[in-house]
């Protein structure tokens, strides 16, 4: 059970980080 939680946590972190990348790019796009 804990294994599923930790693997899901890793996947979630990557997803959030990808969202962060998109957000940084969107801020730049909005500025220009």
């Amino acid at each position, binding site marked *: 059970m*804990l*294994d599923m939680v*930790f*693997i899901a*946590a*890793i*996947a979630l*972190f*990557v997803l959030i*980080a*990808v969202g*962060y*990348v*998109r957000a*940084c*790019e969107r*801020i*730049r796009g909005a*500025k220009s």
Partner: protein
Amino acid sequence: MTANGWFQILFYLLVILLLTKPIGVFMTRVFNREKTFLDALLRPVEKLVYRLTGVDEHREMRWTEYTIAMLLFSGVSMALLYLIERTQKWLPFNPQKLPNVEPGLAFGTAASFTTNTNWQSYVPETTMSYFTQMAGLAYHNFVSAAVGMVLAIVVIRGIARRETDKLGNFWVDTTRCLLWVLLPFCLVGSMVLVSQGVIQNFKPYATVELLEPQTVQVTNADGKSSTQRVTQQVIAQGPVASQEVIKELGTNGGGFFNANSAHPFENPTPLSNFFELVLIFAIPSGLTYTLGRVTGSERHGWAVWAAMAFLFLAAVTATYWAEAKGNPLLLGTDQRAHALQSGGNMEGKETRFGIANSVLFAAATTDASCGAVNSMHDSYTPLGGMVPLINIMLGEVVFGGVGAGLYGIFVFIVLAVFIAGLMVGRTPEYLGKKIESYDVKMAMLAVLILTFTILGFSAFAVVRPFGTAGVSNPGPHGLSQILYAYVSSAGNNGSAFAGINANTMWYNTSTGVAQLLGRFFMIIPIMAIAGNLARKKTVPESAGTFPVTGALFATLLVSTILIVGALTFFPALSLGPILEHLLMAAGKVF
């Protein structure tokens, strides 16, 4: 402090200075895909890798594509390491029949090695099988170092290129970094270490009879104590040299043994100690020259190197002074240095390395985001222990981790140039690129994520029972232990105030999250700046351009680093090591 100690410290810095240009030139050629002496051997291997993986080596990526590729690669690698740890009992190369690693520890360790932190809250020789050490941990030592280096190269390209959104190909850069830089250096380096006595084998641990059997008092599971006669000792061994060399060259820091580079199988001689020290700074120092060469301003690269060297010498001097002075409460004890003893505070240090080589290692390992240790930082005097803490708090930009040091100091360069621009009332420029509000916002985002992670987790841990449970010393030293744990984690250093017991579910998971935030959430805004700079036109230098090549720039850069660090962390330091020092002067120790 002794003349001999200072000679060794200055000789070390001289060797690093001499290596900077050749290593910097070599890395420039590797990442610019220019001819090198290894091409005949490695180019066919490289082509084969691309053919097998379907990578188009001529396709370049935007910063977003590059960063997402890096994130996916790191995420999959981290999950694989987690699975290896959780299944090591059934995997090969486990002669000690070690059980599977606990889930919390497996997560923390996977995060730790993926982020180049290598924080170890466990005893490696009794927790990790040879397979886990090699296929799991040593693999990450290589790839996490390569990831850091290629990101630094992207930042350099971002500064050097103009009017483009292409910054290279993550898969190509990583492959070339591994094949041309890390693997050859490590192959030669591991031979040097083996020549000094570092071991490399797959034998099960040896059990030997003690020459002087010991009688010890042990506490049983029911809480009752009993006396035991110890007549045997288990000597752990294994494939150490192959992991040792990348541990330092890749500024990883995770030891094969719990005692790390204080262990004679990891670091047996003064020469191996010096070699390991050189490995820690070799690539980060070389990258400053690569920065100058690729951007067309070698003097800028040297100015950055000078700023780093100044901060390094300041750190070594402060730690050396604090440790050589000794403990004022040991009244009547001879703590002077002379022919028969190192003098000063030798608790937690190896007599074969003495004060000078211990503080030099401590400064280098925390200036870089290495985390390998040859002495125990927890046993340093309060001010001596504060210096490694400050080194990490400043962002490990003094040479820094492989790649991480360069892209870390890039943030401070952006801020320094911005401050200079404000002073003269012009739009700041950096090597012909205008630094605008988006760049400064992203730079501040990178600085703030580190700050919030360190102070947020530390503050939470000191007020919760599961946070204070692992602390071995009360008072300000206990605060320093907790603070160091999160500073080291978020800074991706990995060294520890080892008095803390961090092998708990709380510390394994919270330090793991701190490591992930400190690595990837700092990288993303820096990559955004690189992507933004690459799109810009170059403006010609004018009389109002702030020069980034001389002593004035180096001074401003050092000041920016110190001011940002001091403003952010001084309150926490005043409650920890500074208070402990004042109380020690008043006769109270913890």
